[in-house]
């Protein structure tokens, strides 16, 4: 789950890719630069040692007593400071039948120490390098050569503390890694900024889509980068087409109703003239026309709702719809002197769906209540976590508990229809269920029926 999330996040993909690349580059650069510096410092160090060796060689003489002497001591002050880390030493190589003499001459810095050089005899003019342990058990790097003056074979050695070389290298490497680390962090920050800024349009696209889904907007609004704009335009086209299809379905359904119902009126009126009213055929026509009308109403309302249930971005404020219907009831049922009370809805709840469908559901219910109420109807809209509830209470005679289920299921089958009973409740219940809502009948505190319509809110 977590790994899938990581793999599926565009941001994390981009960031991880950049990060891996930064780490690899920094490591390679750090290692490479370190190596280069190491080689460079080592070479410099060796050149310095050889210089000292050359200087020593040039100043080497034999005095009158045939003793080896250095005419002019090398000038580096470290050679005079005891145990400074830079030393020289001259050994005498044994001729035939002689004992070799160590440290015929040595720098003052050696004090009374002797450099224990491994047995080696470089050919004339060759310079050899070794690593040995010197005074105070410090690692030394040495260069040596063999010089022969007359019969004297001498071994000239210059040595230096390795730490004189490794110290600066370690220092440099420390600074190098610190600098590279800072650079890496800077790059990482820059990369995350780039990802954040680069992906920001996706975020605003998501917001725009969210507004469409919540019904706050009919299509995706705003300007997007040219890479995303075609996607947004395509999506808006799909939305518009959807709305158009629904509108067309609605209009066609309405036209069909209109086309069917006027002829039905004519037919029913023709069968209803007083002279023919008791005729069997007339009675048949009248009852069948009634059935056709109910079936047309029922299936049309279903077809219309089915079309719009699938359209996103629908939002209908509930209260204005109820107010419109209450105006109709007050006018139409003016004779009956029923008080219709619409309790205020402070939350301004909105229905996630088409206005016409909400009108259809509530219209049927309020009309029913107006027919059955004795003197008072109360309508209340309340919030129900993600849904809303419209309860319609009347003080009529109500419906017995055992009858309630039956009333809601009535309607689809023609033979179940009771003459004079509307399909209002059944149609409303059906529409509500198509929207994922429900219709509940209960006993009202006013004494009659309480009908509650529960629908998805925006």
């Amino acid at each position, binding site marked *: 789950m977590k790994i899938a999330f990581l793999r599926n996040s565009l941001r994390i993909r981009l960031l991880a890719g950049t990060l891996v690349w930064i780490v690899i580059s920094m490591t390679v650069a750090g290692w490479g630069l370190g190596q280069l510096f190491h080689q460079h410092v080592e070479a410099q160090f060796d050149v310095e040692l050889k210089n000292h060796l050359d200087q020593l060689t040039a100043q080497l003489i034999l005095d009158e007593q045939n003793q080896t002497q250095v005419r002019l001591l090398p000038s580096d002050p470290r050679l005079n400071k005891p145990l400074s880390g830079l030393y020289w030493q001259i050994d005498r190589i044994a001729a035939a039948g002689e004992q070799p003499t160590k440290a015929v001459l040595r720098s003052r810095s050696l004090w009374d120490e002797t450099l224990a050089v491994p047995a080696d005899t470089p050919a004339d003019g060759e310079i050899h390098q070794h690593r040995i342990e010197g005074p105070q058990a410090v690692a030394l790097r040495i260069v040596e050569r063999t010089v022969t003056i007359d019969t004297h074979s001498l071994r000239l050695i210059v040595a230096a503390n390795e730490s004189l070389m490794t110290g600066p290298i370690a220092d440099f490497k420390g600074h190098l890694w610190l600098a590279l680390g800072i650079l890496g962090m800077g790059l990482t920050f820059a990369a995350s900024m780039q990802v954040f800024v680069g992906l920001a349009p996706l975020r605003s696209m998501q917001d725009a889509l969210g507004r469409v889904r919540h019904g706050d907007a009919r299509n995706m609004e705003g300007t997007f980068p040219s890479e995303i704009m075609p996607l947004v335009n395509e999506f808006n086209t799909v939305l518009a087409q959807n709305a158009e299809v629904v509108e067309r379905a609605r209009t066609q359904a309405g036209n069909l109703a*209109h086309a069917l119902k006027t002829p*039905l*009126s004519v037919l*029913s*009126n023709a069968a209803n003239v007083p002279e023919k009213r008791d005729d069997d055929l007339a009675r048949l026509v009248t009852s069948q026309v009634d059935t056709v009308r109910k079936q047309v109403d029922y299936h049309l309302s279903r077809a219309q709702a089915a079309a719009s249930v699938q359209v996103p971005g629908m939002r209908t404020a509930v209260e204005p719809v109820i107010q419109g219907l209450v105006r109709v009831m007050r006018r139409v049922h003016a*004779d009956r002197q029923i008080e219709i009370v619409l309790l205020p809805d402070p939350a301004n709840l909105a229905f996630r769906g088409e206005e*016409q469908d909400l*009108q259809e559901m509530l219209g049927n219910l309020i009309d029913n209540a107006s027919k059955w109420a004795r003197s008072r109807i109360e309508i209340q809209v309340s919030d129900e976590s993600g849904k809303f509830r419209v309860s319609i209470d009347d003080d009529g005679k109500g419906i017995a508990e055992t009858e309630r289920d039956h009333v809601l299921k009535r309607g689809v089958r023609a033979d179940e229809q009771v003459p004079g009973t509307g399909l209002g409740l059944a149609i409303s219940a059906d529409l509500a269920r198509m929207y994922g809502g429900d219709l509940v009948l209960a006993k009202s505190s006013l004494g009659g029926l309480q009908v509650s319509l529960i629908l998805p809110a925006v």
Partner: protein
Amino acid sequence: MRILVVEDEPTLAAQLAECIKSVGYVVDVAHNGVDGHFMGETEPYDAIVLDIGLPQMDGITVLKKWRASGRTLPVLILTARDTWREKVAGIDAGADDYLTKPFHMEELLARLRALIRRAGGHASTEFVCGPLTLDTRSSRASVDGTALALTSHEYRVLAYLMHHLGEIVSRAELTEHIYAQDFDRDSNTVEVFIARLRKKLPPGLIETVRGLGYRLNKAQ
């Protein structure tokens, strides 16, 4: 009582006219919105039956225009689209009631009677003036329980006077409300109907207000 029917389907319009006439009303028929609007604007009708789906000018527009120019007469709209949206639109445009096609003629007549009655401020379908009773449901009049034999024109004159009980009704007003638009009118015939009615009714019930018209005497 004079009724205007605005309906574009000829057969239905004829059936409506026939049926409304049969209960003693006078009926004019218009077959499109423009004619209907003009007639409703210029002729003094007591109620109008208006189809919503009309050619040239739709019913809602016609109704809004009437209301905008101050016509307050009751209007019953007929809708083929049985949607609450249409009903709300109709009522908000100023309709007093609606009927969905197909409907039963009895239903239409009952609604029409109720509208006319309500417009006159009457609560019952029976109108009483002293010994005289007029039942608008059966289109009959009786004096002390004895039914009167009235011709259709006599009934219309009496019904109009009863709906405007205690008011003075001019001869011209009576003429306009008992004849259809295309009828050859002669205001003298109103006097003939009044004279015949007076013979059938208790004396003094119909007063003549000199220079103004007639009035039903409530005190009688």
